């Protein structure tokens, strides 16, 4: 039934809003993408553009105020948004696991680190006996470059980098098909960040696991991922192979985001910071949400949301794509 060539994950027209005192806040609007088995997808964008909300949707870990208004999330063809809470619980970590944004506090301070990973393994019955589960944790620790002896230690005895590794080991503990890494290295210093990133990439390729890597750091995403999606104001504004997108960005926002970071290829050019702020999601501007900050905006941008333009797998939502090879479909 499941063909190896079918995408592992297929997100179609996903829309999510939060009920707040200021009214309805549209965190994600009409987001669609596919993720092939064993490949890595990056999601980039400024803070508050909906990246983390997408991750939470995939895990179905949403606060009570959240409302999924439309869309499907197909994992191996099965819509996980339709599963019961109990079915979803068994799927979490076993199929989709997550490395959280604030890794510092992800480990429960009152239990030994190894114990917390064993807990997940036992819940999902990945190993049948406790010694086997412990042995597995030791293996995972070695995999992420930690001394297996550390399993008997408490989180407060770990440094930031060690905790992050432990959290990655925890995310790997049930052999998930998909791992979501939500800004896993933001809180760490650059050197540790780089090492962990490299190891993450190695492990992902070694285990042929799919990865969704969420970050605001374009350089990191370019290094780790095969496919990248750029999010702005809850919308996926551009998507394509990482190399294509960063070589010839089609959406002005992607271009602006790239020029505000030091170049990946090392060429020297002035850094241009993007003026203005992302729009208020409870009252987004009409038309293209980026038009108030866009240098290329015209009247049509202010009125109507742009159609999709594409060239192969590279697509963008823009009236005036910077890369003219992208053209409207149909």
């Amino acid at each position, binding site marked *: 039934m499941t063909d190896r060539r079918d995408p592992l994950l297929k997100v179609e027209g996903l829309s999510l809003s939060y009920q707040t005192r200021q009214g309805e806040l549209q965190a994600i609007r009409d987001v669609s993408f596919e993720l092939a088995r064993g490949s890595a997808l990056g999601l980039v964008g400024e803070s508050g553009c909906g990246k983390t909300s997408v991750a939470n949707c995939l*895990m179905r*870990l949403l606060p009570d105020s959240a409302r999924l208004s439309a869309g499907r999330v197909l994992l191996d063809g099965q819509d996980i948004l339709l599963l019961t809470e109990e079915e979803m*619980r*068994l*799927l*979490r*970590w*076993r199929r989709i*696991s*997550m490395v*959280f944004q*604030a890794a*510092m*506090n*992800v*480990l*429960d*301070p*009152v239990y030994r680190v190894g114990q917390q990973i064993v*807990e*997940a393994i036992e*819940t*999902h019955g990945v190993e049948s006996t*406790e010694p086997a589960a412990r042995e597995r944790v030791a293996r995972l620790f070695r995999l992420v470059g930690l001394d297996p002896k550390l399993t008997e230690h*408490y989180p*407060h*005895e770990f440094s930031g980098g060690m905790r992050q590794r432990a959290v990655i080991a*925890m995310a790997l503990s049930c052999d998930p098909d998909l791992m979501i890494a939500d800004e896993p290295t933001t809180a760490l210093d650059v050197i540790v960040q780089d090492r962990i990133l490299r190891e993450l990439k190695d492990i992902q390729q070694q285990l042929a696991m799919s990865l969704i890597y969420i970050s605001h750091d374009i350089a990191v995403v370019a290094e780790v991922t095969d496919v990248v999606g750029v999010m702005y104001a809850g919308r996926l504004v551009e998507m394509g192979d990482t190399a294509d997108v960063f070589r010839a960005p089609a959406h002005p926002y992607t271009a602006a985001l790239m020029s505000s970071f030091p170049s990946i290829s090392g060429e020297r050019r002035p850094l241009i910071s993007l003026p203005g702020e992302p729009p208020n999601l409870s009252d987004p501007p009409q038309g293209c949400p980026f038009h108030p900050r866009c240098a290329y905006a015209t009247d049509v941008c202010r009125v109507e949301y742009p159609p999709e333009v594409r060239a192969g797998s590279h697509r963008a939502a823009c009236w005036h794509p910077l890369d003219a090879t992208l053209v409207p479909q149909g």
Partner: protein
Amino acid sequence: MVLTLFLIITLTFFLVEAQPGDYASFYVLNPDLPPEVKDQIRAAFGLDRPVWQQYLIHLKNTVTGNLGVSFGNYPRPVIDVLAERVPRTLVLFLTATAVSFYIGFFLGKAIAWRRGGLFEYATTISGAVLFTAFTPAFALMMIWVFAFKLGWFPVGKFLDPLVWRGADVSANYVFGNMLLSAGAFIVFALLVMLLLKRFGRAVPSVVALPIVLGGAAVIVAAWAISGIGGLALDIVKHMVLPVATLTLISFAGTMLLTRNSMLETIREDYVMAARAKGLPDKQVRDRHAARNAMLPVVTSLVYSLIFAIDGSVIIESVFSWPGTGLTLLQAVRSEDLPLVMGAILFIGVLSLLAHVVVDVLYVYLDPRIRYQ
């Protein structure tokens, strides 16, 4: 710890010293006494010496357990009176504290986990009312409802003289044995739990309950055939209402605190992570959220324990429960100073012990403190 104990002894001594008149004045003021007898009495009390010597003697006596002779229960020594009364207070206090902590914690975590709804509203309101209710009035209301109107329990006191008429054993003997069996039962239950935990998955945890219940049944049976079971039952009957009242007034604090602490813990990343790991809802709540939410609750347990100590003094006086609190009150009313000092010393020691227990418990519960 020792220092604080020392301070309490010192404090009580100087409080008594600071009041007008002295111990002996009760007797010395009697104009019929010839002066040499007065001096004799003063010498007997050590009152002819300077204050600092009196203080040292007092200190030595207190440490060696010589608390003097009670005026009111003459010629029983204070230590003897206390030895009879202290266990009765301890039972009241410990049972109520344990039960109220358990109930408060359980309800607190439940209402924080399922927010909204009638249940949360009802428990929070009734908790707040119980928390601020005027303790004596509330205790009297309990007596009125359960003892007078419903007649389920006796009105007060420790035992019913009618039941005890013709009994050939003393109340203290029966009570002592009851304490022993309760202690034995607790040790037994803890052992069962510990053994089960030790051997982990080899034995399903369901068997724990029957084993523990079986132990309880054996103890109850032993009492039933001992011949003094009826007497013990009488004491138990007298205990129910005071314990229930003290529990009711003290559980609300724990409950409200647990609720607040839970609401903060629920936002922690590790609770989110526990859910993401696919742990069952109950496991996320109990093992992760509630386990961490317990820490601040335990810290403030000191306050609840002190509250419960004061509460037990009030409850004892309303229920005429002959424990340390009632003893203190009666001693105060009859100006039985040695007994007053003995009782306050005990209450001070009890609250100090409460402090120590809480500290130890906290260290056990929080690994971050354990290794410092």
